[in-house]
């Protein structure tokens, strides 16, 4: 149960961040629905941070399964991050006013 306090802090942070996200994004014009989605999608590649931490720990753990899982998750998350931000930028570059 020693993990409970950090869990509780995490829960606070999670709820507040959700509310902040909701406040910040409420009024989004349809023009930006796709870029917002793909930009947000790139942010969900934050899992990369988790993948890096896990991979670093894996070397201490000396467990091959952990190394492999960490490695694949780094690849997946990096695809998500790099691809997501780049494709969003490419899209937004096209949006022009007359």
């Amino acid at each position: 149960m020693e993990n409970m306090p950090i869990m509780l802090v995490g829960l606070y942070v999670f709820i507040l961040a959700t509310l902040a996200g909701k406040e910040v994004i409420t009024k989004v014009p349809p023009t930006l629905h796709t870029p917002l989605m793909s930009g947000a999608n790139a942010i969900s590649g934050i899992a990369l941070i988790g993948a890096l931490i896990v991979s670093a720990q894996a070397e201490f753990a000396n467990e091959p399964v952990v190394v492999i899982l960490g490695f694949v998750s780094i690849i997946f998350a990096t695809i998500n991050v790099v691809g997501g931000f780049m494709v969003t930028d490419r899209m937004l570059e096209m949006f022009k006013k007359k």
Partner: protein
Amino acid sequence: MNLYADMAYLLSAFLFVVGLKQLSSPATARKGNQMAAVAMLIAIVVTLVEANVLTWTWVVTGIIIGSLIGAVAARTVKMTSMPEMVGIFNGFGGGASALVAGAEFFRLQQAGVLPMGEGSTIMLGMFIGAVTFSGSIVAFGKLAGWITGNPVTNKFLQALNAVLFIGVLVAGYYLVMQDPTMAIFLAFIGVALLLGILLVNAIGGADMPVAISLLNSYSGLAASMAGFILGNMILIIAGALVGASGLILTNLMCKAMNRSLANVVFGGFGTEGATAASIGAGDKTARSVDAEGAAMILAYCQSVVIVPGYGLAVAQAQHELKKLCDLLEERGVDIKFAVHPVAGRMPGHMNVLLAEADVPYNQLYDLEEINDQFKDTDVALVVGANDVVNPEARNPDSVIGGMPILDVDYARNVIIMKRSLSPGFAGIDNPLFYMDKTMMFFGSAKGSMQDLVKEVREA
């Protein structure tokens, strides 16, 4: 974790929030996206510095491979393939979170300590991540046309899903509370993946805007769960932001169809390409028009409102459409575009398509902005749209009753470019086709549009 690292994470979180805020306004959107990318870079660098990486081989190789795949995909993808691109990226995010949870499970398992609280969090993280992963792959397949766009469902599906869900709970319980084996672990993952497939496969093609927004939300939730597992705040915050943004889009899409989320996810609504024979065409006759006739009407009118739909995307006729608009504008015709929120296969699909063809975004109007203007419009030109302009939606007893539609039937003339009289995704007849003011211009959007451009040029 030292103080500097925490401060850097805080800065990163701050930039994510500001970036998202800027992403929701056209003038600042590009800067917002770049700001979020900087936030990500800060978080990555801090993590690498802090994480005590002993051998860099795996980490660096992984990042290089992922960057290459991501960059090439982002560079080469056609704008018309954007829905499936976003779909598959969602899947990679969810998959990565599931793998992080899995790796942490094995690490703690091997170390011989798996507290119950942490164990349940890990199970939840793996579950959400796996469902997001396989669900996104199916969404990708549907959007790319590799598997049927029809909802794949039957009356036992709900029961099967419930059984599978219980199976996941049982396997999860064994993994956390009992002595876990590799077999149970694989069963847990397998069933979670299967659930994702079954859930998304039951959603029809035209409901994909909802499905893809929901999966977007899940990929954020999965990242947050990974944050709970590792006790990492930046993961929790960024994941929560994505979760919220996905949920907002999901709600917008549901509202635009006047259906509940439960109805979209479990309803198995609609079929694509339903046969016209089953529709009671009866004595109603539709008037058809050829390219020359349509060109005459368009070339000599004052105002045109164009209603694009999924058919435009399928035919990839957006560039031809832009040519037509340029020609008409040279003749002094006022051109506007009316975009329905769920036209196409993802939120904002039509906007991306038209932006690619260089249509300026201030020529695009939302449902609320444009509906009052149809009565003062000479010609409403509907290109490959159907259900979103079906006046049946005003009939409360119809299956699409209550769905907000574009009031094209109030325009003085209506030209509909479509392959046939067949019903749209909702599977019901469209009375608009048989109105006196309506002319059907049959053909594929691209060919018809090319003919139209030629005729207008000569008119």
